[in-house]
């Protein structure tokens, strides 16, 4: 099963790319959170190429809990102020789509130039990690709302950790990385739900 999944590594790379695009473009929170959960699945798939299933599943489990925490906080906000499940953005959807396309092309350029090579690591894993880092940086750069920046940060960390877990594949490192994702989701939820004015941030001035 694992060997079979390893042969199809192009699928999670495309999945990561697509999930990143949805996170970038979608305006509903629930859609972004769904895409984030899918992104965790694809990252786990890529991780399987160098880690046993028992280790890789820690990442999947953590990711799904992270997504669930974000969903619950969004749901709580929606109950408090119904009909506001939208991520306000500084830029239009068209701009974000083009920006994402440019970043993906740039990421592929970095990959194909072999500027950054890790010996022993599958090319597809490296490509997936580059896409995640690039997509995360773009999300952080063009977002103003806590939720959107937080998801960008999670994406950025996922990309970095994909590489780093290959370099340092220890249980302790995986556990600490899992703790970082859960704590980050907790902080985003805290800022979103308990701190007043979250809804207004990022909206254009009237």
């Amino acid at each position, binding site marked *: 099963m694992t060997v079979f999944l390893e042969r199809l590594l192009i699928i999670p790379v495309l999945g990561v790319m697509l999930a990143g695009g949805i996170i970038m473009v979608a305006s509903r929170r629930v859609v972004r959170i769904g895409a984030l959960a899918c992104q965790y699945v694809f990252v786990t798939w890529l991780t399987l190429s160098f880690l046993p299933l028992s280790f890789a599943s820690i990442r999947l489990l953590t990711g799904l809990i992270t997504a669930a925490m974000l969903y619950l906080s969004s749901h709580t906000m929606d109950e408090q102020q119904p009909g506001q499940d939208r991520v306000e953005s500084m830029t239009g959807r068209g701009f974000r789509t083009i920006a994402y396309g440019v970043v993906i092309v740039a990421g592929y350029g970095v990959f194909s130039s072999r500027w950054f090579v890790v010996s022993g690591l599958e090319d597809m894993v490296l490509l997936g990690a580059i896409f995640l880092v690039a997509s995360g940086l773009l999300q*952080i750069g063009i977002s103003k709302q*806590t939720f959107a*920046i*937080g998801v960008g*940060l999670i994406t*950025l*960390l996922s990309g*970095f950790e994909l590489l*780093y877990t290959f*370099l*340092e594949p*220890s*249980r*302790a*490192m995986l*556990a*600490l*990385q899992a*703790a*970082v994702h859960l*704590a*980050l989701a*907790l*902080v985003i939820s*805290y*800022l979103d739900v*308990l*701190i*007043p*004015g*979250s809804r207004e*941030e990022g909206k254009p001035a009237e």
Partner: protein
Amino acid sequence: MNVPLILLVGAIVTAGFAFLLRAKAHHAAWIGAGGAFLLGVFALAVPLEAAFDFAVLQVRFNNTFQVLGRALLLDEPARGFIGFLFILTAVLLTSSAYADANRFFPSLVLLLTGVCSAAMMMKPFLYAAILMELAAMLAVLILVAPEYPARRAAMRLLFVFSLAMMAILLAGWLLGVVGVTGATPEIARWTAALLAVGFAVLMAVPPFHYWLSVAADESHPYVVVTLLLFMQTLGVFFLLRFLDTYEWLRTQPSTFEGIRLAGVAMVWFGSLMMLGQRRMTRVIAYAMIADLGIILMAAGMGDASGLELMMQLNAARVPGIVLWTTSLTVLMRIVGDDTVEQLQGVAHSHPLRVTFIVLGMAAVFSVPFAASFPGRWMLLDVMAGSDGLGVLTMLAGWMMSSIVLVRWYLAMRGKGEGGDVQEQVREGSFILNILQLALVLGLGLFPQAVLPWMETIIDGLSNLLPS
């Protein structure tokens, strides 16, 4: 008995008590401060790996705690740093209730101290980077409160700390797996660059301070200052630890030169930025950047005397910063804000508060008789013959900070709205300010009584300070 475990559990239990008492701010602050002080003294004084009789029991304090196959090791350098960190926490918590920091402040700061202590004890060290990221998340919870929704500052802080974590993890991997020596200059350069990014974030070295200006505008001044002081102290300790551990790093001439130049840049940047600020919290923040610049200049000398001066200055800055910030927050509660317009003329209605603020500023700016003056004077004396740029920087920093001091004093003495607000005396904060002032003057007038003790904290750095 396991000392790292006692320190961590002690911090968590004290934080728990402070949390339960959160409705009574003074109780929470004093319990937290008392607990932190005891843990600090325990860390400094406990006999490690030695058995002794206690009543009918034979007690032995182990210095290692194993978790998930990794070790938390309280060795001699870590013991000094952790002791200092807990005592710093105690000092900061003592004033927190009077400064009206949020009600979770004592418990969260204690947890932060616990996480930072764990980071300093972590072996191998690269895992400490992830603990620092977790510490940044705790810092966000301290920084943001419903009455201070500093979300922008929080997200910026998280972002820069994530960058620092990645940089230090990669550097740790290069050090541990690839192996860096004097014979691998290319890898050594990359590693040094990655470490520089990590330390720059920790110490809020420009441009990685960009969360700070927003935090100064959006968050509570005492909270901002506490976090900055904490991070800068942690950055200084990690820097010393790295220099002590890695020979290739401390034997590269460019390392100490880089530290010195970073210090010079910080003094110029912080001092120039201070001149144009209209909020006093921002002035404090930039003053702390400039102050850390002086500390780095001392470290940049690269010898034992420089490092001892660095430790002296690092400790001596604390009472002045706390005095300035506490008295400012007490005044802000009365007048409403810390802008120059709002503070215009407040000296007429609140002469004592303004006196404390001015004395706190003077202490941070190192006027004669203040705590950090002897250290700075010694540094100037040492640099006088050999480092023209350093001398020029220190003198320019002194001059610019004097201008800032006079400007704010004149503003508070002038005529304005602040003069009409009624004074509300709080005896507790007044007594606290007097004690802080006494500490500032005591350290300034009798530096030989306390400051040499600060130097013993770094005695454990046996490679950096060969006996």
